[in-house]
């Protein structure tokens, strides 16, 4: 029986829901994570300066909500990278990788599509978890703004998937069980600009931030979170950048994964 993309998506969705159902603490930790991160950052930030200083430097009207939303975005991005980029490694550890490869379709389809529902659910949870905070500070409008942020996160997900697949391909080819994503995660945190303005980073890191989609999502969020009418043109630039990154990363990703499939099947490192 030929396997369609929708079959793989359904399997990924079913697996994610069953996993969450059998791990209720996972659901709880997903909800509470942005609040814990935001609390920690605000507490640490207060050592260096007041919220007022933060507000002045970033131009956001509500720093607490901004940091909360930022934590949600970063968490969502990390979930995507973690889910997609480590999928090959995760399945290799579990021993399920050969059975995924035995699906009667191309391996790259399974490795890219199967983790998508999990990544989507996790990233949605990351943003939705912040909604009660937004409602508390800003009422209905705060919730609406977060939903716009969620749309941006979805958009940012596309290039992130490409980037994650490139990482997954490298992981597959490496004979050691190296988690390449573990290197990427702190780098993204560092250059995303979510917790402090990018301007304070060295020039090289500022350039580097341009290759990560998370930076654009955070920038767009900041425009929305200034709680003035966002500069439409600046927002459009962020969207264009995300589209460009989507094309570049996913193009490279499809070549990388096809190549790594061949190498894996030659070397037998399944």
């Amino acid at each position, binding site marked *: *029986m*030929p*396997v*369609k993309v929708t*079959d*793989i998506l*359904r*399997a990924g969705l*079913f*697996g994610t829901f*069953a*996993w969450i159902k*059998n*791990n209720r603490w996972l659901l709880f930790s997903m909800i509470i994570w942005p609040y814990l991160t935001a609390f920690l950052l605000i507490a640490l930030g207060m050592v260096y300066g007041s919220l007022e200083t933060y507000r002045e430097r970033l131009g956001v009207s509500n720093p607490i909500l901004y940091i909360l939303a930022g934590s949600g975005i970063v968490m969502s991005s990390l979930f995507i990278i973690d889910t997609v980029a480590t999928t090959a490694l995760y399945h290799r550890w*579990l*021993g*399920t990788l*050969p*059975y*995924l*490869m*035995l*699906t*009667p*379709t*191309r391996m790259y389809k*399974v490795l890219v599509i*199967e983790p998508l529902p999990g990544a989507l659910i996790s990233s949605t949870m990351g943003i939705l978890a912040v909604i009660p905070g937004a409602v508390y500070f800003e009422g209905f409008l705060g919730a609406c703004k977060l939903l716009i942020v969620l749309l941006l996160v979805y958009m940012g997900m596309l290039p992130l998937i490409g980037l994650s697949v490139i990482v997954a391909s490298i992981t597959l080819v490496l*004979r050691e069980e190296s988690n390449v994503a573990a290197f990427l995660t702190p780098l993204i945190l560092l250059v995303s600009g979510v917790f402090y303005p990018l301007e304070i980073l060295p020039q090289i890191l500022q350039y580097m931030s341009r290759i990560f989609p998370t930076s654009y999502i955070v920038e767009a969020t900041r425009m929305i979170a200034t709680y003035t009418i966002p500069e439409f043109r600046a927002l459009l630039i962020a969207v264009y950048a995300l589209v460009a990154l989507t094309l570049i990363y996913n193009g490279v990703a499809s070549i990388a994964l096809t190549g790594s499939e*061949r190498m894996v*099947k*030659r*070397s*037998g490192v*399944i």
Partner: protein
Amino acid sequence: MPAAIKAEGLVKKYITWERRGFIRRTKRIVEALKGVSFNVERGEVFGLLGPNGAGKTTTVKIITTLLLPDEGKAEVLGYDVIEEAEKVREVIGVTLSVEKGFFWKLTGRENLKYFGMLRGLKGRELNKRVEYVLKLVGLDELGASDKLYEEYSLGMKARLALARALLHNPPVLILDEPTIGLDPASARTIRELLVRLAREEDKTVLITTHNMFEAELICDHVAIIDKGKIIAYGTVEELKRKAADRISVELLVTIPKNIIDGVEEKIIALLNIMEVALEPVEGGKTRVRIVAKPGEEEYVVEKLVEWFYSNNIRIHQVRVREPSLEDIFIILTRGKGNAS
């Protein structure tokens, strides 16, 4: 009608890197397969036998499209494993390891549903197949269908692995050591099921094993692979006939620890025989197995008993019997006999 599985001159070399310090590594080429060829007919249980590292799993991985051969070709139901890999995957059910390969935090039923969806099953058909295979492998009866996989015993894991292989009702089953590490009751259940699937549902079953007892019980044809080459091929009876001129003498003894080293060599020198195998068994005893020519068995037993007494080796049991598949296997894989 073409053979269900056909392997022709399969060659596979692996490049391995041996560490010689923290950074330095030496490249080594391991020849896993050196021209493996065999046919598996439709509806039969075929055993690929061999010691550890003989090339069984490499052969299975090539046939199941998980590995590309360097040379040679293989087909499953007429589909080429390289050119028509997706077609091959549609018609095979595979078990590679009974110990892992499932999600620990999902139940047996949930795991099967997940893998069923990856096979294109959906809705009622999916539920029906999942229920059917859970009953077939006996997990339903054990009340384990809705237990988390992490709570499964090895026997349950083996049954679930077989259930997954059967989920999409494939005509060909390829099972890598399906009973390894199982208790005798679980192993027997799996063996009986495999025979039933071949006889009643006309499925072709290829198993790899180094359990000769198992192969003798369920396989219609066997191939013995060693060091990447097929060294014997035929029915169990045909292989046994090749060694019909050999009688197996078995003694169950307790060898004092201070003389256990070198006993094997001493027996070979004492009797000038072809083969001797020492196998530790329960209670600190050792099973000594000797392959002798017909007519020589009495002489062998007499000499051995005499030597054992003089060396304070206690004898518990003496048995003389026809050669088993295990004897053939030992003779062939040690390369000391001429049965092949």
